């Protein structure tokens, strides 16, 4: 997908920016979504439904805090239930946002421009949800701060050799760095909104958020320097975060977990599922907010290709797992493979394969990659597939490990489901608020893109329909 691709060898390929956009039309279109567009009933309905989900989450959490983790289905031998599944799933969703905003930035992939803002927002909201679960999973949630190394009267320190402590550092770093990266990118657009806002409230709010940004060339130079460095920092960070998440499993000696394939397999799985979530968010956003000029078929095509590629890496992970089970010669590993496919949770495993291996193969076809409905459905199928994949990893390894006398089953309770679906509601609620209150496409980056494409001779900026200016020497200042 290098830049030679952008020129489009065949006439049918869509541009990465619809022709006719000017600096002004970009500002008008994107900022009007925040400042002028009437909030539709659909938005309110969506907010209402997702808010109910959020309330369900709050209720489930309160119930959990009152009664303790016994309200969940976790027990021995399956002591890691939905909480860890949800944690891994949510944090994986975040990773595609960072991939789009940071890694594709470093690789100078111009198609990232229109989608990076909401992909980053997706990252933030997913990480917020992810961060909840390890804390909720603690026995005494209110003592979670014991994970922070601080001098205390108990003279206790965290156990720095434990992946669970690494996890705490990785996830909190990821959340903070994603937030900083996102906010730095938002500041110049806040200045545009400040200048375009008609209401006093808008002017003051966006004025504060813009920090008084005035588009000075000196500021831009430092901005670009820091933005590039943050992208370069976020790239290894995103790999490290999911690697550390996979170490939560791989460092243990449980059959099916103790494997060196886990880090790359987890990182690829995270990106796979993250791209699926980007598709779920992009397709309706593009349609309902009429962003077809900025998020073109080309973007959908690229995202579908990324989904396919990461899906194939995940498939390789599945193959490798089964190979290890056979080649290790270890009876526990071998039994895990048999039990995973044919045991009581066998149907979950086959469903995982259907969702993650079989379904994405349709993306080999160009017509499928350009069909928004298919992409949306693939997004949903892959998201479900990746959730149950994590379920398979967590539950099947634990429920039958070394001693048959200690085998057992995991039965989730209504509180497991309420917490999980609640966080889904919370995620979409935050996203709906974001699309209403923030510019969903980075305006300054699209302006820059117009110039870049124009210089390359791939784009014709529309002419601005205003009369040529008159030089007025010594004009009055306002």
């Amino acid at each position: 997908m290098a830049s030679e691709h952008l020129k489009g060898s065949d006439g049918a390929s869509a541009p990465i920016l619809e022709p006719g956009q000017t600096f002004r039309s970009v500002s008008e279109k994107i900022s009007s979504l925040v400042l002028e567009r009437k909030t539709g009933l659909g938005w309110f309905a969506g907010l209402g439904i997702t808010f109910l989900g959020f309330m369900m989450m709050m209720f489930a959490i309160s119930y959990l805090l009152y009664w303790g983790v016994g309200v969940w289905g976790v027990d021995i031998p399956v002591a890691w239930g939905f909480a860890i599944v949800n944690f891994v799933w949510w944090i994986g969703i975040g990773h595609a946002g960072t991939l789009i905003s940071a890694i594709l930035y470093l690789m100078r992939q111009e198609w990232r421009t229109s989608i990076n803002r909401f992909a980053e927002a997706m990252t933030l909201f997913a990480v917020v949800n992810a961060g909840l679960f390890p804390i909720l999973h603690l026995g005494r949630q209110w003592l979670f701060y014991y994970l922070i190394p601080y001098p205390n009267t108990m003279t206790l320190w965290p156990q720095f050799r434990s992946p669970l402590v690494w996890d705490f550092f990785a996830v909190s770093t990821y959340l903070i760095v994603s937030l900083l990266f996102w906010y730095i990118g938002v500041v110049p657009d806040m200045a545009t909104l400040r200048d375009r806002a008609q209401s006093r409230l808008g002017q003051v709010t966006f004025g504060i958020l813009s920090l008084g940004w005035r588009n000075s060339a000196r500021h831009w130079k430092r901005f670009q320097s820091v933005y590039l460095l943050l992208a370069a920092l976020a790239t290894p960070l995103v790999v490290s975060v999911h690697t550390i998440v996979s170490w939560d499993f791989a460092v243990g000696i449980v059959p099916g977990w103790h494997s060196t394939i886990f880090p790359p397999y987890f990182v690829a799985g995270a990106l796979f599922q993250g791209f699926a979530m980007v598709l779920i968010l992009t397709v309706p956003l593009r349609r309902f907010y009429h962003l077809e000029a900025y998020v073109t078929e080309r973007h959908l095509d690229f995202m579908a290709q990324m989904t396919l590629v990461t899906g194939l890496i995940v498939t390789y992970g599945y193959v490798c797992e089964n190979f290890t089970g056979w080649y290790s010669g270890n009876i526990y590993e071998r039994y895990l493979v048999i039990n995973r496919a044919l045991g009581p949770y066998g149907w979950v495993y086959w469903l995982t394969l259907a969702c993650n291996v079989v379904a994405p193969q349709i993306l080999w076809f160009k017509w499928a990659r350009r069909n928004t409905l298919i992409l949306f459905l693939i997004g949903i199928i892959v998201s479900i597939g990746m959730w149950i994949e994590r379920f398979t990893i967590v539950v099947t390894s634990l429920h039958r490990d070394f001693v048959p006398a200690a085998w057992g089953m995991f039965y989730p309770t209504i509180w497991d489901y309420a917490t999980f679906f609640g966080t889904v509601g919370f995620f979409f609620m935050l996203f709906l608020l974001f699309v209403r209150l923030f510019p969903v496409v980075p305006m300054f980056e699209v302006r820059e893109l117009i110039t870049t494409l124009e210089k390359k001779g791939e784009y014709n900026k529309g002419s601005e329909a205003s009369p040529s200016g008159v030089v007025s020497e010594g004009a009055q200042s306002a």
Partner: protein
Amino acid sequence: MSEQEHIYGLSAEFREEQQLLDAARRAYDEGYRKMDAYAPFPVEGLADAIGMTSTRMPLVVLGGGVFGGVSAYILQLYASVWHYPHNIGGRPYHSWPSFIPVIFELTVLCAALAGFVGLIWRNGLPEPYHPMFNVREFREHGSQDRFFLCIEADDPKFDRQETERFLASLEPERVSAVDS
């Protein structure tokens, strides 16, 4: 001269980024130093054209990263070896490979925080008021579709008539006095 004390500078407004880039280079060649260029997106080479050829932001980020990494190592060394030595699965107290993940994460965290704080601080933000906002066209177009070059009054070469004539010769849309 007394007139100059009342204004922040003179600004010229352009339609295209190339015009601004050329104007900035001409102004620099002319000998003006205290000036700033404003564009609604980063224009390549614009900062260099007004004489800002380098930025210290990479050093700030590097400093943050080094601080984060070193302090993370010292923290773990202090906690695991000296203050609370504890036998975990027979591993040595100083089991440095296990310390790498936290060192890495804190390196990234401190580097990113240093970059963010450095950016805000070196840019002098937050700065809600700036004289450029007194120019109506700048408020209406500066963050959207126009390009501005402002030569500031405290530039030693600044002379109200002379500078105005110079800016007008660059064929801008208009030249405005910027109230301080």
